[in-house]
């Protein structure tokens, strides 16, 4: 009797799921966010849930990386480039029903740049001198100096507009935004559920409900896709499984680019890496294509500096550091290390680092550099490598968009200290003319390549898998996000 009942209820459920399929989607993601407040944490997993779906900022990134209007309908920039007047959309409501007004913008920006702010990208707000509300739908932001990247900065997930008066601690588990989806619930360790915001100010979402499920193990993720439990995995954790999905008519494989410059970072202040010749030797000792093929199964684009190839200002500098082990050995000899040396290679957990690390160790050995390879968890990596400067080499992907500005910070973990580069960055920040900005960014790329600050490996690919009937997922990843506002089932 019990068995019959179980069978019947399962049958009923399968039937209802089949019917609901056109308006529901199960998204898979590898890492669960620690909380859901993008203004108080760097975890990309937070933005993967909330960016564009739940929270919005003054501006936002479109699928191709352009900065477009968000909660600000339009803006005027004063002649001297110091005053931005944002005209907010009217009739925008938070999910709890309260109105989004200029005072919410003032509150959000002031909170992010405050003394005790715990915003992970506080630097985005550094140039703001003053924020005032002219009226309910007009916000005036004054900058201390011209900043050509200001609208870009305001598009980040860290710059979303919160509702003034909300308890920010409560928002971590119960977000209250203005986006096209509302937060339903969070089964910690398992999934997050969203529902369509019926009172959305803009084009409403097509999907009615969304479940984001967390599967950390790549094998389990593969099984869940194959079993049909997950409809789309926007960033699939195991590139080696992609050919199998590609061959399966039920799925489409979506390959795009991310903002992740993957580098073999070098401790620039530590001998022998303080010698430019040694760093140049490193650059020529590494065969990028072997790493892309061997560690990433061919997914990834070689880069010659810390700059994304899909950016209009990109210049291909991979030729500056072409694979030439003979030259590398000669450079080492010239630097005074004819027999090479021994150093440490500390690897954080991601696949690109662990697999890439083995290949790099072998390539370095071929030119006489021995590496002691240590695998670290993120927590230890941050402590030892990032804050402790206790490393020779490490592999990491810098996933923030346009983050070449970190090279101007001599305290940043690879400790590149070039007055010339720092001056260049200051000039770039102050420059608002688009053509001049491109020229300056190209200068920056040339400088990073010429100084061989790090070995620039490849741009991390976005490797997604989805049911072939799903339309509207982002191909590229101009910022960490799983924008579901335009996603739908084609049948």
């Amino acid at each position, binding site marked *: 009797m019990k068995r019959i009942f179980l069978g019947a209820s399962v049958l009923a459920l399968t039937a209802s799921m089949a019917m609901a399929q056109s308006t529901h989607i199960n998204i898979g993601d590898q890492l669960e966010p620690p909380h859901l407040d993008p203004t108080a944490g760097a975890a990309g997993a937070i933005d993967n849930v909330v960016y564009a779906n739940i929270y919005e900022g003054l501006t936002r990134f479109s699928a191709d990386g352009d900065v477009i209007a968000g909660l600000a309908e339009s803006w005027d920039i004063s002649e001297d480039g110091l005053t931005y007047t944002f005209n907010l959309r009217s009739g925008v409501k938070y999910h709890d029903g309260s109105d989004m007004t200029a005072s919410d913008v003032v509150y959000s920006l002031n909170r992010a740049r405050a003394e005790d702010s715990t915003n*992970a990208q506080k630097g985005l707000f550094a140039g703001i001198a003053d924020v005032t509300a002219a009226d309910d739908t007009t916000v005036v932001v004054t900058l201390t100096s011209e900043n050509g990247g200001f609208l870009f900065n305001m598009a980040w997930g860290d710059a979303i507009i919160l509702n003034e008066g909300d308890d920010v601690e409560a928002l971590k588990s119960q977000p209250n935004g203005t986006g096209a989806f509302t937060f339903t619930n969070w089964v910690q360790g*398992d999934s997050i559920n969203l529902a369509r915001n019926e009172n959305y100010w803009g084009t409403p979402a097509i999907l009615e409900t969304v479940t984001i499920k967390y599967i*950390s193990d790549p094998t389990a993720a593969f*099984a*869940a896709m194959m079993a049909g*439990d997950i409809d789309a995995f926007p960033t699939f954790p195991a590139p080696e499984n992609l050919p199998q999905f590609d061959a399966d008519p039920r799925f489409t494989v979506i390959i795009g680019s991310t903002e992740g410059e993957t580098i073999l970072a070098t401790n620039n202040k530590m001998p022998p890496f303080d010698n430019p010749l040694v760093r140049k030797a490193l650059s020529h000792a590494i065969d990028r294509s072997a790493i892309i093929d061997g560690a990433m199964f061919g997914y990834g684009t070689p880069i010659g500096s810390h700059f994304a190839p899909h950016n209009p200002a990109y210049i291909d500098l991979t030729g500056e550091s072409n694979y030439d082990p003979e030259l590398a050995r000669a450079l080492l000899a010239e630097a005074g290390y004819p027999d090479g040396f021994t150093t440490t290679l500390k690897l954080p957990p991601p696949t690109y680092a662990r697999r890439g690390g083995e290949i790099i160790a072998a390539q370095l050995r071929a030119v006489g550099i021995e590496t002691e390879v240590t695998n670290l*968890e993120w927590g230890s990596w*941050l402590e030892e490598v990032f804050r402790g400067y206790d490393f020779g080499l490490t592999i990491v992907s810098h996933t923030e968009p346009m983050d070449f500005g970190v090279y101007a910070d001599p305290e940043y973990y690879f400790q590149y200290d070039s007055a010339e580069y720092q001056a260049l960055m200051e000039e770039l920040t102050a420059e608002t003319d688009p053509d001049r900005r491109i020229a300056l960014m190209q200068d920056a790329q040339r400088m990073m390549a010429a100084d061989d600050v790090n070995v620039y490996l490849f741009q991390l690919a976005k490797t997604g898998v989805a049911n072939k009937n799903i339309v509207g997922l982002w191909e590229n990843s101009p910022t960490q996000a799983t924008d579901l506002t335009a996603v739908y089932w084609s049948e």
Partner: protein
Amino acid sequence: MLRYILKRLISLGLSLIAASVLIFVAIEIIPGDAAAYMLGINASPEAVAALREQIGLNQSDFTRYFDWATGMLRGDFGISYTYRVPVADMISNRLWVSLPLAMYALFLSTLIAFPIGIIAASKRGSVADWMVMGGTQLGVAIPNFWFAMLMVQLLAIKYQFFTAGGFPGWDNFWLGMKALTLPAFVLALPQASILARVMRSALLDTLTEDFMRTARAKGRTRRGALVHHALRNAMIPVLTIIGLQFSFLLAGAIIIEKIFFLPGLGSLILTAISQRDLIVVESVVMLLVFAVIVVTFVVDITYALVDPRLRRRV
């Protein structure tokens, strides 16, 4: 009996205090900082410092231990560094997966082990005995993570009887049970194999006892004597194993939880370690220690219930 229980309770309390100190010290040694982990590699040092202050990481080790230990007495495990919610809530959510899973697996394990253990013992040397011994040998030898992947491949991907993993919650009891069935079965199989073998040898040991001959002499059938007399006497080693298995299932399902992506205690502790959410790690480990101690205590008491001789001795 009462004095015995009281004495056991005191040693239980002392073990818990010792365990809490040991756990706190051992875990605080791990390098890494929850605040740095949360803010990532573009954060300014001031922001990290502000966050450390906010989540209470700047207090002295002693203050943090004292707050944590005394809080636990009141059932308050503190606030998670990363999630900013009470640790007690997080643990209880996960317990609603891990505890039923452990009980389900233990139930399946005894359900399989008892009959086959009894059959093997009662027909010692027969083909059935031979098959049970061979089968359980295999059951002990197969690594359960591999068996789990095999089951997923077959029953979730090929035939789609089950989902590949995940847990839908207890809103629908049957769906919850269905999601736990495959993991529970995978966990139960090696446990059942061990239990069946223990059952068989414990029964065989009692078969040579005098009271068994008496039972047969007074006219009990071979099977009747086995079920009514030998079984009860064989329970002590079996109960010991069941007690050990329950603690193991509660704490040791980490890999199986990962394969079936179940939101249980195992996956909680794993993420908490990588996020340096040490207060969560400490609390879960403490809870598991508590569970093991309590289960041992309960098993000790049941010995006395099963065996009246033990009751008299204490």
